[in-house]
């Protein structure tokens, strides 16, 4: 059965790509390159990157879920994974695969944040001048994005099994001419 270019599933996929892609790119960028953003000379860039990763590791450790080795692994890999996945989802390349990976990360993060909220953990303090606690709004935002991510991935898998509307077969393309 040929897929329609304007059906609900494709709309959700587009929405997911346009929202989740940039969100993940910025999330990864901010973890790796903010707040310390000295890019030159090279040893300043290395120091900036290291301190930002260390800050993120500190925040990951605050969730009290991983071993020290696990914390370091997540801190060193997640920002760059988010940037790459965000980019791939945004351009829509191999969306069933990378959309699923993005959805898995998003669901995992939503579960972790919800757990922290239910346990009244003062997470992500980071001691900013303005407090940044985990509240119900944050929990709902993450749950919403996780739902969007899962929907996007599921629909991408479904749509991948159907012929693309712009690559219709010869039989369906020549059908109107036979009238």
């Amino acid at each position, binding site marked *: 059965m040929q897929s329609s270019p304007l059906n609900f599933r494709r709309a959700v996929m587009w929405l997911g*790509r346009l929202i989740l*892609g*940039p969100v993940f*790119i*910025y999330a990864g*960028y901010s973890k790796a*390159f*903010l*707040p*310390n*953003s*000295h*890019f030159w*000379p090279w*040893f*300043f860039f*290395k*120091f*900036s990157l*290291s*301190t*930002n990763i*260390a*800050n993120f590791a*500190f925040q990951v450790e*605050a969730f009290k879920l991983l071993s020290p080795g696990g914390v370091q692994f997540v801190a060193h890999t997640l920002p760059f994974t988010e940037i790459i996945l965000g*980019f791939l989802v*945004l*351009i*829509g*390349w191999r969306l069933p695969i990378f959309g699923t990976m993005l959805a898995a990360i998003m669901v995992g993060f939503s579960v972790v944040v919800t757990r922290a909220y239910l346990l009244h953990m003062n997470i992500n*303090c*980071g*001691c*900013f*001048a*303005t*407090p940044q606690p985990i509240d119900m709004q944050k929990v709902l935002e993450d749950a919403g994005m996780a739902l969007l991510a899962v929907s996007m991935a599921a629909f991408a898998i479904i749509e991948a099994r159907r012929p693309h509307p712009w690559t219709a077969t010869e039989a369906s393309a020549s059908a109107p001419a036979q009238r």
Partner: protein
Amino acid sequence: MISGFGGLVVAALFAAFGLVSGLSLSASPAPPQTSASVADIDPHEALGSKTAPVVIEVFSDFQCPACKSLYDATNRQLMDNYVNTGKVYLIHRDFPLPMHAHSKVAAQYSRAAAQIGKFEAVEEVLFQNQDKWEASGDVDGTVAKVLSPAEMTKVRALVKSGAVDAGITKDQAIGNNTYRVNQTPTTVFHANGQTFPYAGVMSWDILKQFLDQLLGGK
């Protein structure tokens, strides 16, 4: 194909935006050039030689877990390898954050202890016992563990009189107005005529490499 190309364009725009915003963030505010021109240094809360080639200002909150982490990870080695050898002039700046109920009191006690030459001991006991006094609010009892009764009497008098409050307010003003500090710890490095604020924790290995390269003039 078209959606892929459009996505590439959008992604490139985001990347460019991110890079520009990052570069703009790296611009430093007007920097003091030497320790002599670093504003309002309280000599009781500064350690090392004033002529050291690298000056480090640390904006810190005693109730901040990240500040404790930085202190635990770097303080002893920094003191032994760089401050005591005349390579680094280390300045402590109090920056108690509003959401920490007892950090202002802790800053008052540490500043008062600094007046009688006991800053390092009090700083250590406050960070080592952070989780205890954070829960109980008993900063006085924590500080009393490392000071003699006579010293505690002097410290309590200084805290009660408000004599140390002006210094804390001045440090906060420097952090807000000069360096735009918005989190703790924030470490400001002054070297080779330039100023580099860094927010957050850092490991000793990375800090050591950075200091060596700053001292090497690279």
